[in-house]
C-alpha cells in the first residue's frame, strides 16, 4: 500500500470517525511524523486530506498581524499562533470546529479573571442563544446543562452587583 502523500510504502494506517463518518488514510513513516500523526492527542485527519474542500481564495491572504501566522501556515500545520489568530481565522475555523467537536460553544469552566474582564451580560446572551438552539434541536440533555449554567451565571452577576 502506498502513502497518501508520497510514493513510499505506507506503514501508518489511520482511522478517525468525525460526525459518524469514517475517514481512512495510509501514510509512510516520515509523512506521518511530519504531519504530527505520532501525537494522536492533537490529530485531525481533516488537516491531512488533500481533497478536502478548499477555502475561498479571499481567505488565502489572511494573516494574523499580531503573530504573523498566515492562513497557509494554519492549513499546513493545523496550529494557530496566538489569541488574536482566533479572531482573524474565525471564518475559516468555525466550519472546521463543527466537525471536530461536540458543539461550537464552550460549556465548561470559565476562568474567574475572564468573568471580570468581559461583561457577564455578554456571555449570558451567548448562553441564552445556545440554550434556544439546543431546545430547537431537541437536545434536552444539553439544554438542561445550559439552563443550569445560565442560572449560575445570573446568580454570580447578581452577587457582584
Amino acid at each position: 500500500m502506498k502513502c497518501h502523500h508520497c510514493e513510499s510504502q505506507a506503514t501508518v494506517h489511520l482511522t478517525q470517525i468525525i460526525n459518524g463518518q469514517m475517514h481512512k488514510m495510509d501514510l509512510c513513516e516520515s509523512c506521518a511524523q511530519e504531519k504530527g500523526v505520532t501525537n494522536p492527542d492533537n490529530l485531525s485527519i481533516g488537516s491531512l486530506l488533500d481533497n478536502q474542500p478548499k477555502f475561498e481564495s479571499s481567505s488565502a491572504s489572511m494573516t494574523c498581524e499580531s503573530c504573523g501566522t498566515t492562513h497557509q501556515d494554519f492549513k499546513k500545520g493545523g496550529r494557530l499562533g496566538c489569541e488574536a489568530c482566533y479572531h482573524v481565522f474565525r471564518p475559516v475555523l468555525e466550519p472546521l470546529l463543527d466537525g471536530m467537536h461536540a458543539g461550537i460553544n464552550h460549556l465548561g469552566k470559565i476562568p474567574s479573571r475572564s468573568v471580570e474582564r468581559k461583561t457577564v451580560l455578554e456571555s449570558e446572551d451567548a448562553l441564552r442563544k445556545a440554550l434556544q438552539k439546543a431546545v430547537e434541536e431537541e437536545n434536552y440533555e444539553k439544554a438542561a446543562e445550559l439552563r443550569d449554567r445560565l442560572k449560575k451565571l445570573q446568580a454570580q452577576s447578581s452577587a457582584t452587583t
Partner: protein
Amino acid sequence: MFHDLFFSKTKGKAPKPCPIALSTRVRLARNLREFPFPGRAQSGQKKAVLSKCLEALEKVTDLKTSTSVELDELSELDRQILVERHLISLELSQSDESGGVVLSDDRSCSVMVNEEDHLRIQVLSNGLDFEKVWKLADSLDSGIESKLDYAFDQQLGFLTACPTNLGTGMRASVMMHLPGLVMSKNMDKVINAVNHLGIAVRGLFGEGSDASGSIFQISNQQTLGESETAILERLQVTLENIVHQERMAREKLLEDDGMRLVDKISRAVGSLKNCYLIQSSEAMDHLSLIRLAADFGFLPEKFRALADRMFIEVQPGHVQLSAGKPIEPGERDQLRAETLRKEFLRMPQLNLDPQVD
C-alpha cells in the same frame, strides 16, 4: 451487538478502582493571553513565558511541595525517564529551548511549560477515579489562574494552539489492560464502537489493536461543546462498558480454551525466569500475562503489583537508569533479562484452582 452495548448506560455505579484500569489522567491545556503560543513565539518570548510561569507556579498551594526543572538542565536519559513515567510528554522532551516542568513531590501533578501550549496541567492517579483527578486538576488550574491571565474566549473557551483542544482544553484518559479483548480478537470491534462515541483508543506502547502488553489509552476526542463533567461522565460510562466486555472476554477464554490460556501464561512465566536477552515489547507481552494470571488468582496478588512496576522498568530509559549510564540496545536486552530473571526468580507454580472470593 458490541455497538449496542456501548450505548447502554450503567449509571448509578460508584467509580471503584479496578485492576483492569491502571491509571487515570486529566490534562488541561492553557495559554497566557499576552504571548504568542510556543510554536509561534520568539526565543525571548518563550524565555519570558518560562520564567513567568515558573514564578507563578511556585506560589500555587497545590504545588507547595514540588520541584521545578528547566529541560535544558536535564540529560537526554533523564528526559526519557520522565517520558516513560508519563510525567512529561515526548514533545516536551524534544523541545529545543525554554521547556520546563514542575512536578509535585508525590508525582500526582505535573505542569509542563512551553509544550505545544504555554501550560499543560496534568494530574495522574492509580486506578479509575475521574472524580478525584478532575477535582485536583480543577483546583490546580484555578490556583494557577489566580496568578496568570489565561487566553480565553466566551464562545470558544480556553484558546489553544491546536483547535482540537479548544473549549475545556481537557483530555481525560485511562490506561487499561485489555488482554482478554486482544486475545479474543475483539479489540478492533471495541475501538470501532467507541470511536463512534467520540472516544479515542490507542496502544500505549505501539499502535493498533495489538499493542504490546495489551495496554491501551482511552481518551475523549472532543473538548468543545460539552462541560468537563459531561465529558467525564460519558467517558466513565464507556470505560465501565469496556471493563465489562473485558471481563466477559476473559471468562469466555477460560471456558472455551482454558488449557491454551494456561499454557500461554505458563510459558510467559518460563520466559521471564529464563531469558538472557529480551526486548521491551516481548517483556511487556509476558508481563501482561503475569498480570492476567494474578487477576485470575493463578498467582498471588503481589505479582500484579510487580508486573505493573516492571512495565515501567523494562522501558529502554529505565534499563539504562539501572545501568547508571546510556547503553546500546543489545546490552540493554541483556540487562533487562537479568533484572527480570532476578525479580521473577521466586515466582511460584500457577495455582489453577484458586479460591473464589
